[in-house]
């Protein structure tokens, strides 16, 4: 099957598949989008207010560039740096600890699949505010091994993101016929690292990306554990500064939102195409991912 004929099939099937019309889609997304934009707009408006006078001013924004106020924002920059570091380490925990375990269970221990799923949804049953009570002594112990630097908090965050990361990865892994794919690859002589790197991971790209998205978003928004373990992250820093200067707090909340949004958009962009590959191949690969089985025959050397 060639890429172009597959694309054709897909386009035709979309017409049958009861996808909404352009108008319906526009209406739904437009209305919901507009309602969801209101609080953001309100925050922007608030950041320009001149106290309670009813007028508007730029001083809250220009004040950010004032070198005199740099000291005032030090806690915010620290919080932001800490949160970005934590996000990176947490994604690492998800991709290096959770993902290999999930693939291993899917391929070799099908009976453990339910056990793994059960473990991964436990953090929902055990909310952060419950966990934090028991985390305090654990962190006293961990501090003895790793020191008390901020990144160790990512171990706890890895647990917090577990249900979300698991769900996104599993919906990809479950829809994939991983056993058939890997057995086919193995029977064609591929080594396990090859199966993993060239067969499974490319097929799991969407799940991996989605899991990383949500992990980063969870970590940048985390407040409960950091504040109750007395660590500094973005959220605790914003709360701290809101008490002295609410306008700056709102501005930073806006900037943080924008940053996260752009970051995730960027990750999505980079992920949807292979670096250096022309656009056309990407589209064909995209179609391939949805129909893995016929494509496997393509890989068989004739």
């Amino acid at each position, binding site marked *: 099957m060639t890429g172009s004929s597959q694309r054709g099939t897909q386009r035709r099937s979309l017409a049958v*598949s009861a996808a909404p019309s352009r108008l319906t889609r526009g209406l739904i997304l437009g209305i919901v989008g507009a309602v969801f934009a209101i609080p953001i707009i309100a925050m922007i408006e608030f950041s320009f207010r001149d106290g309670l006078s009813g007028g508007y001013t730029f001083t809250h924004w220009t004040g950010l560039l004032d070198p005199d106020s740099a000291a005032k924002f030090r806690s915010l920059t620290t919080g932001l740096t800490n949160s970005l570091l934590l996000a990176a380490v947490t994604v690492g925990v998800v991709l290096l600890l959770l993902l290999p375990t999930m693939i291993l269970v899917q391929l070799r221990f099908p009976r453990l699949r339910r056990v793994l799923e059960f473990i991964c949804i436990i953090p929902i049953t055990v*909310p952060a*505010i*419950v966990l934090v009570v028991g985390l305090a002594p654990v962190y006293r112990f961990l501090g003895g091994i790793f020191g008390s630097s901020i990144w160790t908090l990512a171990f706890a965050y890895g647990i917090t993101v577990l249900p979300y990361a698991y769900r996104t990865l599993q919906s990809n892994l479950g829809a994939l016929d991983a056993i058939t794919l890997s057995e086919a690859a193995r029977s064609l*002589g591929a080594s396990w690292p090859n199966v993993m790197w060239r067969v499974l991971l490319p097929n799991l790209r969407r799940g991996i990306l989605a899991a990383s998205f*949500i992990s980063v978003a969870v970590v940048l928004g985390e407040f409960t554990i950091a504040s109750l373990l007395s660590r500094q992250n973005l959220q605790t820093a*914003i709360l701290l500064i809101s008490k002295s200067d609410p306008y700056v707090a709102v501005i930073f909340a806006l900037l943080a939102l924008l940053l*996260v949004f752009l970051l995730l958009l960027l990750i999505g962009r980079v992920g949807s195409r292979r670096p250096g590959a022309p656009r056309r191949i990407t589209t064909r690969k995209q179609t391939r991912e949805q129909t893995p089985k016929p494509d496997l025959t393509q890989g068989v050397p004739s």
Partner: protein
Amino acid sequence: MTENPGALAQEPPGAPAACLPVRRRRRRARGRVTSILGLTPFAFYVLALLALPTGIALTTAFFDSAGSFTLENVATLFDPLILDTFVSSFWISALTAVVGAVLGALICYALLGARPDGALRMMIESASSVLAQFGGVMLAFAFIATIGVQGLVTSLLRSQFGIDIFADGVWLYQLPGLILPYIYFQVPLMVITFMPALDGLKAQWAEANATLGGSTFTYWRRIAGPILAPAFFGSLLLLFANAFSSYATAAALISQGSQIVPLQIRGALISETVLGRANMAGALALGMIVVMIVVMTAYSILQKRTTRWQR
């Protein structure tokens, strides 16, 4: 499958057929041990950072501050005041979960025909990831700026339409004030958790339906509906759990009183140094977890039905 089909056939298939089974069996036995070893890092991680802290948190419920066994903390859960908090937590979670699930599913439906790697899809997925975790402090700020006493919407309604949304008193810093902020993070979370299920709908099913003369309505009523139902209710339960355990938004909005259970826990945690109610937090945590276990058991049953269609 791979970019380089030749890589799959690195080992030439030249080995005699007779020695294959033996080699394969030996290799499989060795692989089994390696596989089991491969599970240990994750197991150890979960034990140390999930099982251990949870155990510590829950066992404190059964001890008094002197360290001897007691049921007094657990009995306090049935105090009418504490029960009221549980009821409040329950209805606010249920309400926001239902509204969030319906609106979120609607957005997922709207995205159904969009190209999976298209700009629209990417945009909405990123926005959802951000907004679903737009909890806590920032969300509280946003709603104070929107429907606070001097908020944008409040003052617009007052000056343009003469409507005072706070005619019966300021409810934003009370329990009802949590409803809108909670819905604000529930809808995007629904988009994130429910979208993969819609992606799992195979184009062939729609084709088969069309070939057999089915209409769009038949497709939703008889094929997509039943297949998506477990995933939908599963996501709904996730949303409920999400709201029930949410702490940061409430903590930032409601400064006085402990209207929902997580705020009660905060109160108990803070007061533990002052009043010596060291183990009340553990008892509240226990009560919370009992509710969560019921919800999650139902979720797990639904999930069993969902995965039936994922192969």
